[in-house]
């Protein structure tokens, strides 16, 4: 066969797959916006989706400016350097350790930062003002995500000690989950939380969103091998098997505990399953992946039932789904990783207990940093401006208040404002 010459060390097959994987992960963020928007009340639909859209804008820019460099440029064990800032030196030459151009590597990793940033919004929907939210994610996407990514993938201290995290149990899943936990604590509960029923206004969005997220996750996990080699194929296949098992177990739990198999439960199960397998995808056998999928259902399910009885209005259960799911996966590796499948290292069950140790350390350090850093950042933003809308505005709904739009309008009662009045109208408001 003929292949157009590519610069030394770049593989056509790997590049082809990584282009797709990157596009798939990018698509996950609007899918997440859809998923989240379905879980809120209709008067907050657009605001909720806009928090994901905001991540697509803000986090991409911060990533190109400094985030990528802080995460992946060589630095110390805690954080990377700045020599790739402004994408300096990021070109067509392959990223070390891969056979794809660094430019593509940077784009792939960017999509991870974007969706992780968007995930955190689940904790503060329906009440946080949009302006402060923008400030927050600008800071968070620079000071939280890149640090965690550096620890496990950028040559940081966890990587150095051999913590295994295939596609982001630490930076993405626990990172978003425990940041969400902190955000919910700082921003506080919605005014009617615990007093009134705050129901998902469109479960179809949640189902379709979950379906698209699963679709994107094949790029997320399957692409985290940066190639079409063994680890990717294994990770990809496990991303099919694990969530399916989570789904089946969730059905059973719902049937037994809730008396009925719920659709929103099923959508949640898909996410939890994908989250659970994320860190372990390329490290464990397909059969263990099914086991992990099944196992991951329990902690998240329990948390999702218990949390609403507390005062913690972590509204869309990011902690339960991502924090706990990621935790389960990270620890699972410590037991059931198999060198025979991943060619790198084995877990305790296969004669290498040290692996478990460093998985546990990661499972403590990641959440701790995510929680603390997020808590501090939000407090800081809170010093500059009010984090949440007035209770009157909250009652009116964030769509009208923050965006001056409604998700679903019938033109009735809408009087066209003509240019001249217009500015007037605007001013008067």
């Amino acid at each position: 066969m003929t292949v157009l010459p590519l610069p030394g060390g770049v593989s056509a097959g790997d590049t082809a797959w990584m282009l797709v994987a990157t596009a798939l992960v990018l698509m996950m963020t609007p899918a997440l916006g859809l998923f989240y928007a379905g879980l809120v009340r209709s008067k907050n639909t657009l605001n909720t989706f806009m928090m994901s859209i905001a991540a697509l804008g803000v986090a991409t820019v911060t990533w190109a400016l400094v985030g990528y460099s802080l995460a992946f440029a060589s630095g110390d064990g805690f954080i990377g350097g700045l020599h790739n800032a402004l994408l300096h030196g990021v070109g067509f030459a392959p990223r070390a350790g891969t056979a794809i151009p660094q430019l593509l590597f940077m784009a792939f990793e960017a999509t991870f930062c974007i969706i992780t940033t968007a995930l955190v919004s689940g904790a503060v929907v329906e009440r946080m003002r949009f302006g402060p939210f923008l400030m927050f994610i600008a800071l968070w996407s620079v000071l939280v995500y890149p640090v965690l990514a550096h620890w496990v993938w950028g040559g940081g201290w966890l990587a150095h000690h051999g913590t295994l995290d295939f596609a982001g149990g630490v930076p993405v899943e626990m990172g978003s989950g425990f940041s969400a936990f902190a955000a919910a604590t700082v921003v506080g509960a919605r005014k009617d939380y615990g007093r009134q029923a705050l129901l998902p206004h469109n479960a179809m969005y949640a189902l379709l969103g979950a379906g698209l997220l699963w679709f994107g996750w094949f790029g997320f996990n399957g692409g985290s091998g940066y190639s079409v080699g063994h680890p990717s194929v294994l990770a990809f296949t496990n991303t099919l098997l694990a969530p399916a098992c989570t789904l089946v177990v969730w059905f059973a739990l719902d049937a037994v505990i809730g008396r009925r198999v719920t659709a929103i439960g099923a959508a949640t199960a898909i996410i939890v399953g994908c989250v659970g397998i994320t860190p372990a995808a390329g490290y464990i056998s397909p059969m263990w992946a099914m086991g992990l999928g099944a196992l991951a259902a329990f902690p998240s399910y329990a948390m999702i039932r218990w949390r609403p009885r507390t005062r913690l209005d972590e509204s869309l259960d990011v902690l339960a789904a991502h924090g706990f799911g990621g935790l389960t996966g990270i620890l699972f590796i410590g037991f059931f990783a198999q060198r025979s499948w991943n060619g790198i290292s084995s877990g305790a069950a296969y004669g290498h207990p040290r692996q478990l140790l460093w998985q546990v350390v990661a499972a403590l350090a990641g959440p701790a940093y995510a929680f603390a850093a997020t808590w501090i950042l939000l407090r800081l933003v809170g010093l500059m401006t009010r984090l949440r809308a007035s209770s009157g505005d909250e009652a009116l709904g964030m769509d009208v208040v923050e965006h001056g739009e409604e998700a679903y309008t019938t033109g009735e009662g809408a009087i066209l404002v003509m240019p001249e009045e217009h500015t007037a109208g605007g001013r008067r408001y």
Partner: protein
Amino acid sequence: MKLVIAIVRPEKANDVLEALYRAEIRGVSMSRVQGHGGELDRVETYRGTTVKMELSEKVRFEIAVSEPFVQPTIDALCAGARTGEVGDGKIFVVALERAIRIRTGETDALAVTPVSP
């Protein structure tokens, strides 16, 4: 003239329309409402949140009729809407002082008998 208001089950709406049609009541307005009455509440669960749903879907008919049509209208409504189960709904009759057909300005009895195409 009277304004007859009826609350019925949504799944019976078409039967009611048919019954009204047969009784030659041609003009009606209809809207979706939610109602609470003697029905059992439903329990629903959304993630960790469990709720009692106190309202059930109903359809509300509003029909202006001249005196001679009042009873036939009520009969038609009952015929079309009854299942015998709790939740069949109610009929309310209110005195109607005036009725005007917007298109023509015709009033009262005339106004409530639609033209046949």
